[in-house]
Structure formats: C-alpha cells, structure tokens
C-alpha cells in the first residue's frame, strides 16, 4: 500500500458520506442508557453529589488537581443546586433521546456526565467512562439526522425532504474506535495478570459473593469450564478489539459479543456496564442491513396496526406537501400511502377540488377530511396514538354533549 492509497483509504473511512441511521439509532440508545444510569443513581444522588457527600468536593479536587470539566466547582454547594443539576441532566438526556435540539443537548449531557464523574471517581465502572467518551464524540456527530424531533421540525420547515441526507461518519468512527479500545485495553490488562493467563481469574470472580447476581448452573463452576471460560474471554476481547474491523466476520463477532455480555448481565451484578457497551454495537451494523431488519419487522408487525390508509394531498400546496412529508417520516410502520394529486394516477375532478386546501384520507367507509382525517391517520401510526386518544375522547365528549 502506497502513502497515497493509504491517505485515500483513511479519508474514505473517516470522511466518505454515509447514512447517519446507525449514529442516530445510537443516540436514542445512548440517551436511554444515560437516563437509566441517572434513575439508578437517584436514591443516592445526595449521598454522592450533595454538599455533605461521601467524598467532599475539596478532597476530590485534591485528588484531581488542576482545571477539570466539573460543574460542581462553579455551582454553589447546596442541596438545591445539586438537585437542580439532576433535573437538568435528566431533562436534557430525555431531549437527546427523542432528538430534540440534539446538538445542544448532547453538549449539556456531556457536561453533566463529565461533572458527576469528576465529582466522584471512586464509584465508576468502565461503562460510565465509555458513556462519557462516547458522549464527547456524539456532540460532533450528525446524531439528530434521523429518528429525531429535530428532523421532523426540519421537514415541517421545508428544509428537508423525505430522504435522509448522507453525512460524514468521522465522529461515529471515533466512538467505534472507543469501543474497540475498551476491549483491546481490557485484553492487554488481563494478559498482564497471572490469573487470566493460567485460567483461574473467573474462578475467583465467581466466588466473590458480592458480585453475584442470578445463580449460575453448577456445571459452569467446574474448574475446567471456568478455565476455558477465562481463556475464551481473553480471545473474545482480543477479537472484539482488533478483528471486528474485518467486515466478513464482524456480525459473527457481534453476535458472540452480545451473547457474552448477556451472560455477564445475568450472572454478575455490574449495573449498566453490559448495556453501555452493547449500545455501541449498533454502530458496527451497516445502515442497509439495519434497514432490511427493520423492513422485516415492519412487514411482520405493521399489519397489526390496522389497514393501510391512503392520504391524498395536493403537492402544489407547500403546506400540504410538508404535512405529507412529516407524516411519511413519522409513519415508521408504513401504514400510510400517499397520493399527490399532481400525479397522473391520482383521482381528479371533484376530488382534486376537495383536497386543494386540506388533506383527504381514503378509508373503507369513504373519504375523510379535517379532524376525522387526522384521527384516522393517527389510529394507524403508533407514534401518533396519543393524538388519536385525545381526538377520540374529544369526539366522544362532543357526541355526549350533542
């Protein structure tokens, strides 16, 4: 490989446009991980981060001297501000999850996450650190490009169409690297320790009562099995740290990794660690494959949400075109089909006139317009079920009044 071809491959890897679907999906899962971490911390929030916490702020600053990204050092050290930080953090994580002001909220989430980690370094596990580092790169990623309220707003404002624009994946690549480093560094630390090399490490771990969660089968505690499992862990960590970049074996490794982490989640009590690590697996799945998997799920489950509904609109109206695009983006189970009256196949004449100002919906009981049309559409689009519920209650109330 020449220097020129290496540079070209490097640029292709980091900067060639690709679908932002994996990183957008990661943003959703990441947000859920942060929320779950926060909720687990909630009962002891004051004990860890309050003004009279287990570790005082001056002690922590003495341990970690110098400037640190830690909001606790600039906020007044009171119960009120410690509580306020929790709620701001939670609200921001929720907004990040749904993709509302994704960029701003990724910054806020990162700042809050860095702050609580800096406030007490002694209660962290590798999953927490992974979340923090991934959160940093998420700030620069096109995380709100899909599955987000931001996208719906952009569609509504006419800045974006139905197609999801391709983006540069460098920030996604950095998170991928971070995940592989978690495994590779883990592997390097382990091989430096005699218990892992001689195969006794898991025997120790599975005899520490404090770490146990659900009971494991007795055959698993057999010394030979534990020895093999110890070595298997080493091999797997090396493979997930290095060989995962080989496309042909990537999905096999991800499947084994998934099984491995689920086994650990079952048997060992390390809250959130496995899920934090697994959250980034989605970044290694090709966007096309994600789409294919989703199409399969959609085809199998979509019909349960009711018959497909045809939405007729006049594409020459800017407002109606935006609404149709918006509905298309929300309709993740493809329960809607759209007919633009400008198309040759569209019904003409009176229908054209009727649909000029409003959306019209074709149902088996005839056409619907106005709130009835919205209600019909909302009934088959799961993300609009809250709207359907509100409109149904309103309709029921009107009928009773009448």
């Amino acid at each position, binding site marked *: 490989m020449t220097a020129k071809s290496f540079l070209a491959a490097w640029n292709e890897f980091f900067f060639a446009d690709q679908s932002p679907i994996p990183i957008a999906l990661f943003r959703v899962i990441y947000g859920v991980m942060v929320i779950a971490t926060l909720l687990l911390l909630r009962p002891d929030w004051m004990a860890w981060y309050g003004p009279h916490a287990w570790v005082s702020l001056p002690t922590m600053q003495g341990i970690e001297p110098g400037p640190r990204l830690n909001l606790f050092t600039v906020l007044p050290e009171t119960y009120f501000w410690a509580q306020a930080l929790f709620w701001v953090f939670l609200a921001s994580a929720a907004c990040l999850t749904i993709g509302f002001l994704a960029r701003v909220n990724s910054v806020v989430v990162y700042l809050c996450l860095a702050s609580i980690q800096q406030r007490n370094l002694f209660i962290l596990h590798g999953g927490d650190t992974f979340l923090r580092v991934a959160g940093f790169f998420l700030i620069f990623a096109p995380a709100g490009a899909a599955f987000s309220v931001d996208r719906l707003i952009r569609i509504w404002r006419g800045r974006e169409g139905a197609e999801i624009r391709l983006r540069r994946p460098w920030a996604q690549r950095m998170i991928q690297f971070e995940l592989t480093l978690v495994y590779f560094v883990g592997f390097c630390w382990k091989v430096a320790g005699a218990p892992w090399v001689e195969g006794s490490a898991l*025997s120790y771990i599975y005899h520490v009562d404090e770490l146990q*969660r659900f009971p494991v089968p007795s055959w698993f505690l057999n010394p030979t099995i534990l020895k093999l499992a110890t070595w298997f862990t080493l091999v797997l960590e090396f493979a997930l740290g290095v060989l995962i970049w080989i496309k042909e074996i990537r999905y096999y490794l991800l499947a084994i990794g998934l099984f491995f982490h689920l086994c650990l989640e079952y048997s060992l009590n390390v809250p959130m660690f496995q899920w934090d690590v697994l959250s980034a697996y989605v970044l290694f799945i090709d966007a096309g494959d994600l789409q294919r998997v989703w199409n399969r799920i959609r085809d199998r489950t979509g019909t349960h949400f009711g018959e497909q509904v045809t939405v007729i609109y006049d594409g020459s109206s800017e407002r109606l075109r935006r609404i149709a695009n918006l509905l298309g983006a929300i309709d993740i189970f493809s329960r809607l089909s759209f007919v633009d009256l400008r198309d040759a196949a569209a019904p003409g004449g009176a229908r054209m006139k009727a649909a000029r100002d409003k959306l019209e919906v074709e149902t088996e009981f005839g056409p619907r317009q106005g709130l009835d049309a919205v209600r019909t559409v909302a009934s088959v689009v799961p993300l609009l079920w809250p709207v359907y519920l509100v409109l149904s209650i309103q309709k029921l109330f009107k009928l009773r009044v009448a």
Partner: protein
Amino acid sequence: MEQLTLTEKYSKERYRKFMESVLDEKNAMLWPDVARHVARLPEIRGGGPRKVMLVARWSNVVRQEDGTFARGPWDEHVFYSYDVKPEDLQ
C-alpha cells in the same frame, strides 16, 4: 451486599465499588470524609457519636487441592479511627 434484595443490590452496587476504593490504602485521603459522612447519617448522628472506626471485613478465596475454590474464614481489622468534632455534625 449479600444481604440486599436483587433490586437493592443492583441500585446500590456503587457502594460496593466505592468501598473497594476506600479499602485501598492509596486512597487514605478519603477516610476522614467517609468517617464524617458516617457520623452524619441520621441513625448515628442522633446518638451523638464521638468516634467513628472504619472496619475492613474480608475472607480470602482459596484454591483447594482438588482445583476448586472456596472462601476462607472471615477476618477483620480497624483501618481508620476518627474523633468526631462538633462541627462535623452541623
């Protein structure tokens, strides 16, 4: 940790992690803070604590002759003692 329910164990795991750090002599700078926090716990503060002693309780996992592993007998020692000052309870 062994005495907690599964749910409690899941949400309180950070205490186990924290105590793991506290027991390490490299982190001795944490001991006064931990002792003060213990003195301020509502169930202890009420009794007017004058001294807090941090006790390590452990049992080694020992390899048996047949290659299996088992826990040895429990042992304990006081690794830090702190005289509570009135201002600690403010």
